[in-house]
């Protein structure tokens, strides 16, 4: 199996520029891009690679970059989404702390491709150590002429500024992120207009995830066709960083060629299988926003479309494994409490609905539930999904619906007093 990232993870020395240039063809792709390629060629290559965004929505990256106007009286911006706040996700953190220059080089190539001269990296506030590491790498890049004025003696200038968030899941949503960057509350914007036309500071903007951007140097170095062939599924190429956590023997970040294995193989062959020799009961396959799968459903091929076909999503590639003793009612209550806490409060269905769902789940868990509560939960969830400005509403509704449908008997045991919360 080809891997692009993980062989460089785990060693603090690897974050240095010297390692990056010696072992990872450091800044060669950016040099070739700026000195030998036209911006349109780069966008064409990224399209050909068929890479889709790694932040959660899986949008084709080349197409996103192509949406920005070529000619613009206003400046254009590339903003890297390093908010990494989807529960279960911890891959971007490894990219930042072990291969920060890969991200910076991707920022250079992406900025040149869309015509940006000042790019921003929005990193979640809790990642203080990672922000320090990344800032040191940025400083190193400036010192060595990879950032600043006249990069590689060309006429291309680029500044990169690291911007820290301050604790808010919603700021991972790209338009909330842009508001936060502008010094506002992290409230998502009405779309359209999309960021490609009206984004950061009201200018055309591309927002991309850390892993997406850090993959771009690999695509230029190894070739778009080579990269596209790594994925076996037609519409999405490449490798994926999978964050595997919960009840597995070896939690961690694993890199796999998309479409080449099943979800079960990822859990059993890579992450060591279920811990304590127990059986798997359920898997949340794409961050806490992804509808849950039962143990019978995890022979699904690991890629975007196969996951969609069985009613869940690959999201940010965060796989959370639950063993046979997991209390599914407690789990969905905790997930819903998260969304209730993180709802920004702009849209009534999400602001009110998430709290109602949390309250109902709480009372079921504590022995005060009624039979009609389950239908009420589904009714509320169905009135949140698709009815809000951003996808946080769907992220809260989908899991509740899937838990109630797939583990209904567990809820009923609580409601009928056969089970008590420990």
């Amino acid at each position, binding site marked *: 199996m080809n891997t692009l990232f993980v062989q460089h993870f785990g060693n603090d020395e690897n974050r240095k520029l010297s390692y990056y240039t010696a072992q990872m063809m450091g800044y060669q792709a950016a040099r070739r891009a700026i000195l030998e390629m036209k911006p349109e060629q780069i966008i064409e290559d990224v399209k050909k690679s068929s890479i889709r965004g790694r932040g959660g929505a899986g949008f084709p990256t080349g197409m996103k970059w192509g949406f920005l106007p070529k000619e613009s009286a206003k*400046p254009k911006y590339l903003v890297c989404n390093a908010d*990494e*706040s*989807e*529960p*279960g*996700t*911890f891959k*971007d*953190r490894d990219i930042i702390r072990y291969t920060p220059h890969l991200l910076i080089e991707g920022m250079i190539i992406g900025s040149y491709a869309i015509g940006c001269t*000042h790019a921003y990296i929005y990193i*979640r*506030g*809790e*990642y*203080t*150590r990672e922000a320090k590491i990344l800032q040191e790498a940025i400083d190193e890049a400036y010192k060595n002429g990879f950032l600043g004025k006249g990069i590689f003696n060309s006429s291309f200038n680029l*500044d990169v*500024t690291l*911007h*820290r*968030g*301050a*604790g*808010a*899941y919603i700021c991972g949503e790209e338009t909330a992120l842009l508001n*936060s*960057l*502008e*010094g*506002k*509350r*992290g409230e998502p914007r009405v779309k359209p207009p999309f960021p490609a036309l009206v984004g950061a*500071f009201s200018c055309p903007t591309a927002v991309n995830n850390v892993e997406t951007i850090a993959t771009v140097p690999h695509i230029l170095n190894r070739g778009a066709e080579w990269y596209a062939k790594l994925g076996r599924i037609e519409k999405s190429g490449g490798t994926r960083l999978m*964050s*595997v*956590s*919960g*009840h597995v023997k070896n*939690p*961690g*970040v694993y890199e796999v060629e998309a479409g080449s294995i099943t979800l079960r193989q990822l859990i059993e062959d890579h992450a060591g299988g279920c811990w304590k020799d127990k059986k798997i009961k359920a898997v*949340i396959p794409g961050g*806490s926003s992804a509808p849950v799968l039962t143990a019978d459903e995890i022979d699904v091929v690991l890629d975007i479309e196969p996951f969609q076909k069985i009613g869940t999503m690959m999201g940010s590639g*965060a796989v*959370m494994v*639950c063993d046979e003793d*997991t209390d599914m009612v*407690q*789990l969905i209550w*905790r*997930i819903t409490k*998260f969304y209730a*806490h*993180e709802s*920004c409060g702009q849209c009534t269905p999400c602001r009110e609905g998430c709290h109602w769902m949390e309250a109902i789940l709480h009372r079921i868990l504590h022995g005060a539930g009624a039979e009609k509560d389950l239908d009420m939960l589904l009714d509320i969830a169905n009135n949140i999904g698709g009815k809000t400005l951003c996808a946080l509403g769907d992220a809260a509704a989908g899991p509740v619906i899937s838990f109630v449908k797939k583990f209904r008997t567990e809820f009923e045991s609580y409601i009928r007093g056969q089970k008590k919360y420990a």
Partner: protein
Amino acid sequence: MEKVLSQKFYDKMSKLEQRYPIRNALILPALHAAQEEFGWLPKEAMDEVAVFIGVHPAQIREVASFYTMYNLSPVGEKHLKICTNVSCMLRGAYDLVTHCEKKLQIKTGETTVDGKFTLSEEECLGACGTAPAMMVNDDYHENLSIERINQILEGRAP
């Protein structure tokens, strides 16, 4: 108005000023820098940030109150923020919370009377591969166990 923010704050800000096309983009960095000076955000500090940015104080409060990392009231010397989201919960985070409550004789959200510890529950920290995890002030502690927590509470851990 008497100034409460140090020269260090203003030096930091003047370096950042050129990096944004609009002044309001300095609000989050300024609040971070102000909090670094006090451990939380007293009203006087937020008012001074408002003057520095050039906006109404209400606008600073509106922003500060949106984000969980800005402390709008004082916290203990050590602020324990234990993640209880999915991956950490699956690996025993609530046992750690209960243990801390007992040991510190406070409830989640409270501060010990000597002002040494504040205990909070935290949402996902992005340390799920090394769960359970928590932050103490700005630093991560991962692969936690009751024993590790005791070391931290008793000052036996770095």
